[in-house]
Structures are given as structure tokens and as C-alpha cells.
């Protein structure tokens, strides 16, 4: 197994795709937090003027959570090429012939691409932090503990997205189709379906669709940390805040997280099982 994982990492780092897809991820994470922080800075200044005192509003926590949701798609695309890319370049045969077994090879891919998900996640964390600092200065950042906790959940979500991508690529085996399906679903398909579900008055189901469960879990977790950072009185009415941050009606963060873990596991296992049996001709 160690050999197979080593081979996968060599495959990954001997072509350019791993950093080519990391570039948009870096840009998105940096800019999203930069913009959010800049807006917050003006808002906070206005607030200070009105209330006459400095209020610490660590809104960067929310933007950090949201930016993981944005950059996850690049990690997912990268994952989707793990198996389908080998079909595209016809290297899958050699890969199977040199591995101890197909199961071994596919497990090694899941392990190696979890590692790549970790890399993408940590990169997002670094770029988001730099973006927040550049936009706002350090005084508006939340406590380090909350920041890292949100980052941890975000990194796990990105790793799960990567594995889901690997599974999808294994299911479809056509690289272009896998990437297009992934993009179409996360950018349009799921939103369209959500609208339909809302029209049918079962909008709560929409929270459990793959992308919604992942991003919902992240945003709810970030929002929870945000509220606790604000240290509001227990009697405070949060319904306005909930609708501002679009978390009203969302299930608890761990529910969305578990649902998304289930999605990732189903895709990864299905891709693994299908790839184990597929004829390579």
C-alpha cells in the first residue's frame, strides 16, 4: 500500500495540474476575504460612530467559512481527475498492472487525494487569513481558537469534496464528463433543484443536497463561532442575524457535516467498486 501511495504522489507532482488548479483556489480565497474584510471595516467604523464605542464584529469568521465553500470545487475537480485522468491518458492499464491489486491502487488514490485535499484546504486557510489581514488589519480578526476551528471544519469539507470527486471520476471514467458534471451540478444543477423543491414547499430537503449540506455545515459552524465571539446577552433576538447570514432554517452544522460525509463515502465507495470491475480495453 505504501508503494502505491508513493506512486500516486509521484504521479501528482510530476505534472502541473495540481498547482494549476490551486491558483484559482488561492485567488478566490484571498479576494473573498479581502473584500469581506474591507466591507466589514467600513461597517464597523460606521457602527462605532453611531454607538460611540468600538464593537468587535469578527465577520471574517463567516467569510473564512464561505471561502472554503468556494475553493472546494477546485479540489473536487482535481479529485475527479484522479481516476478519469488515467483513462484519458490511457495510463490506467499500466497503473493496474503495476499495483498489487486494483483495490490497492484505488485505495492508494483515495489516500493520496485526501492528502491533496488537505493541501488545498491548508492553502485556502493561509490565503484567506492573508486576505482578511490585508483587508481589515489584525484588530478585527476573531480569536485564534475560533479561526482555527472554522478552518478545521473547512479543511475536512475540502478533503471530503476531493474524495467525492475521486469517486465520481471512478464512476464515470471520462475525465471531461466528470469535470463537467461536477461543475454543472455545483454551479447550477443543485440551485435549480433547490428552487424546485422550494416551489414544492419542501425546501428543507434542499439543505441535504450534496453541495448545500457541505456549505451549510460550514456556514452554520462559522456562524455559531461568530455568535459566540460576539458574546451577546442570552436574551438577544438572533433571527435578523440568521437571515442576514442566510443560516435560517439550516440544520445544525454537524448534521450537514454527517450528510456530506455520507455523500462523499457513497461516491468514493461506488467509484472504487465500479473501477475494480471495469474492463480496461
Amino acid at each position, binding site marked *: 500500500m505504501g*508503494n*502505491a501511495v*508513493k*506512486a500516486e504522489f*509521484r*504521479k501528482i507532482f*510530476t*505534472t*502541473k495540474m495540481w498547482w494549476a488548479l490551486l491558483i484559482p483556489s488561492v485567488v478566490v480565497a484571498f479576494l473573498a476575504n479581502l473584500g469581506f474584510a474591507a466591507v466589514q471595516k467600513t461597517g464597523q467604523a460606521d457602527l462605532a460612530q453611531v454607538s460611540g464605542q468600538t464593537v468587535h464584529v469578527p465577520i471574517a469568521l463567516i467569510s473564512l467559512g464561505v471561502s472554503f465553500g468556494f475553493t472546494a470545487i477546485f479540489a473536487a475537480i482535481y479529485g475527479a481527475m484522479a481516476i478519469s*485522468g488515467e483513462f484519458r*491518458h*490511457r*495510463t490506467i*492499464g*499500466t*497503473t*493496474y*498492472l*503495476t*499495483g*498489487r*491489486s*486494483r483495490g490497492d*491502487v484505488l485505495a492508494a488514490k483515495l489516500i493520496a487525494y485526501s492528502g491533496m485535499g488537505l493541501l488545498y484546504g491548508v492553502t485556502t486557510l493561509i490565503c484567506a487569513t492573508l486576505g482578511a489581514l490585508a483587508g481589515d488589519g489584525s484588530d478585527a480578526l476573531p480569536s485564534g481558537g475560533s479561526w482555527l476551528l472554522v478552518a478545521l471544519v473547512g479543511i475536512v469539507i475540502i478533503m471530503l469534496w476531493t474524495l467525492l470527486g475521486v469517486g465520481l471520476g471512478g464512476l464515470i471514467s471520462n475525465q471531461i464528463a466528470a469535470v463537467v458534471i461536477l461543475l454543472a451540478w455545483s454551479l447550477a444543477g443543485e440551485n435549480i433543484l433547490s428552487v424546485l423543491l422550494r416551489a414544492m414547499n419542501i425546501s428543507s430537503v434542499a439543505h441535504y443536497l450534496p453541495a448545500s449540506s457541505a456549505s451549510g455545515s460550514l456556514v452554520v459552524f462559522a456562524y455559531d463561532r461568530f455568535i459566540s465571539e460576539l458574546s451577546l446577552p442570552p436574551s438577544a433576538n438572533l433571527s435578523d442575524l440568521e437571515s442576514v447570514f442566510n443560516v435560517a432554517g439550516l440544520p445544525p452544522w454537524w448534521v450537514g457535516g454527517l450528510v456530506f460525509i455520507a455523500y462523499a463515502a457513497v461516491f468514493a465507495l461506488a467509484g472504487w467498486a465500479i473501477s475494480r*470491475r471495469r*474492463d*480496461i*480495453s
Partner: protein
Amino acid sequence: MHDGSGRITVQQLTKRFGPVTAVQNLSFTVEPGSVTGFLGPNGAGKTTTLRMILGLVRPSVGIATVNGTAFNTLGDPARVVGAVLEAQNFHPKRKARNHLRVYAAAIGVPDTRVEQVLQLVGLGEVGERKAGQFSMGMKQRLALATALLGDPQVLLLDEPANGLDPEGIAWLRTFLQSFARSGRTVLVSSHILAEVEQTVDQLIIISRGQTMYNGPLEHLRRSQQARVLVRPSDPEKLMTALRDAGIYNLEPTPDGRLAVVGVQSEQVADIALKAGVSVYGIEEERVNLEQLYFSLTQGQYTPGTVPQQFGPGQQPYLPPQPPYQVQQPYQPQQYQPQYQQQPYQPPQDQYQPPPQYQPQPGYPPQGYPQQNTPPQGMPPQGAPPQNTPAQHTPAQPTPPQGNPVPDAPPPQFSPWQQQVPPQDGQQPGQADPAQHDQGGLGGRS
């Protein structure tokens, strides 16, 4: 685990892709210590068979084993089997050395092995170039280098000569022979016999998914028969004299000569002398291996037209007779399933009679080879029908059918027997099976 024998065994292997049967009830054994050629026209099922041996394609029926076990249970397969399946299986942007380092890691051999195989295949200088920039021949070498990483006991190569320059082919030939001579196993597929003729010791010929021949190349070579072409002053008289001497396998050629099969030219000359017939010219002519190969694989692409009767005593279902049953005699039951599955199949679909006896509705009337076409040659559109075959190239004999005429004198396999040219001098519309391979010279089956 495996038994270390180096033997490849294929037993009753069948693969169906939907309605298409790519391989049908194929059985053969490949022994270590020799280079075995795996021949058949494009589409005969060679690649599918190799991929089933390698566990890449799951057989519909039957099993393929290497060292006594299925590929997928070999454990450390790349140390037992190396395979060159195609020369396109590289990431175009990955450097050759990195490509090898990937698979060296997968197999678990040290990176020094990468340099060894690069040197071995002659790519030592270009290891830093991307595989996508390689020529076809270099890709073939890189594919071979990949196959050799694990220092395997068994080597499988699918059409390795594709894209190789003559120098590369010569090098490959030497390499494979020395590899086999060290007691290891080599199975190399090709759709062109000439490509492997000088490399292989054993031959497996398949056509339409079935084994047509399995045995030493030498046996096939020995089964080649010479015919003597003699130009006598009095053909009738010589024919009579020959028949009196017990030689019945003779026929007049369109140019007025006499073709005598299975005798030495001296014998014919002596008989002619005794009979008082002058001999104006005599020559011996051999059918080459390529023609034998065509005859064995013919029919793969011929349209299923109803053949005209062209010989008495035809028994289309009879499997080929002894000259082809050297190592693994044909088992008649191998043919049974096909007939059961295809009860309405006209016999010619399995054993196509020579197409020159019938119009070929599936072919354009022009541009297909006529008589006297060399097997690999261009269609000589203007070839005069009465041209004397033997004076130019070795005549294009009618490739014998897979169903030998049972009452023909032994050895049963004679390409000449059925070449009865039309007596009215009309040009036969011969379809040369070689032509169907022309388009696929660089292709794959």
C-alpha cells in the same frame, strides 16, 4: 501464489462485448524459453485476449492464467509479467524518467532501476523529455522500459513493431530472443506475419476469435509446398505420363504451363524425358508463409456470400488437418459451440471458399487486387489477366481454406490444389485478404 513456471494458459476463453463476440472459446498455452507469436488480422481478438491474460478485461467465459494463477491473484504482478500494450499510454506532459519513477515506486523497485531500463531500451539520453514529445518508436521503447521495470519473467507485447524503425525492430528482435533464451516467456502479437517471422519460434494464429494454428513456426514452414511449373511441348502427353507415374496433383495454368504439386523438378524433368516430351522451361515455386497465414485467417472480412461449389468433396466443417495440429491438436468440440450458437450461419462464413470464384458484392469492382497480386502489394489494376504468374512474382495462389479437401493427397494442405483458373480466360475477381490488412498496417486490432 504462482508456481513460477512462466507458462501462460488460456482455457476456453470467450469475451462478448454486448452483441459482439471478440474472442470465442480460445485455448492455448505459451511455454517459457521461446518467443511465441500471436497472430491474427486486426479485429481477430488479439488485444482482447492479451488484456484478459492481464486481468484488464474480464472474460465472459473461461480463464487465463499466468504461472498457474489468474493475473489478479499474482500478488506482485509487475515482477512476474511485463506488458507493452500500446505506445500511447503516457501522460504527454510527464517526463519519461518521471513516468518510470512513478511505476518503479508502484512496483517497489529502487529508482536506480529506472536508469537501468532507460539505458536498456536506448532512451538514456532523453529521459528528461516529455513522453508527449516522443516519436512512436521512442514511445514503444518507453512502454517496453516500463514493462521491464519489475524484471518480469513473462513479457507480453501487443503489436510492438508499430512505429518502430527497421533498426528498432532489429533491436527488439534480438532483445526478445535473448530474453526468451534466458528461460523466460515472450508472447508477441502482430497482424503481420513477416513482422514476427524472424523473431518467433512458436506461433498461435487466431482468426475471428478462434485458434487456427498453434505450433512451432518450423512446422508451418515445413508444410509449405513447392510446385513445379513446367512448360512442355505437349502438355497432354506430359499429364498422362505424370499420372502414369502416380502424380495426380497437377493442373494446367492459364499460360499453357503445367503446375505439378508435391514433386521435385528433377522428377518432372525425368518423366518428361522418358515420355519424350520436350521441356522448354521448368521452375520451382514456393508459397510463402505469409500466404499460408492469409489462408488461415481468411474470411474475417469477406462478406457472407453464398459460395459457388468449387471442389468436390468439400466438407466445410472439417477442422484443419494434421499439418496444423502440431502442438495442440484441434479439438473438434471447440467448434461445436459456434455451430450451436449460430445454427443458421452458412458454412462459408466460417470457412470461406476462395473469393475469386464469385463476385464480391461487398467490394468495389475496381481497385481490388486481381490475379498475380503479391500478398502485400498494391492492387495492380491493369494487371493483364493472362500474365504468367511465375515469371513475375511468386504467383498468388489461392490461399487454401481452413477446410482442407479431405480426399486430397497428403499433405492435405496445398495452396495450389484449388487454383483452377477459369478456362475462358475471364479475369477472376479475386479479393486478396492482404488488402484488408493494408489499412491497418499501423493500426491495432
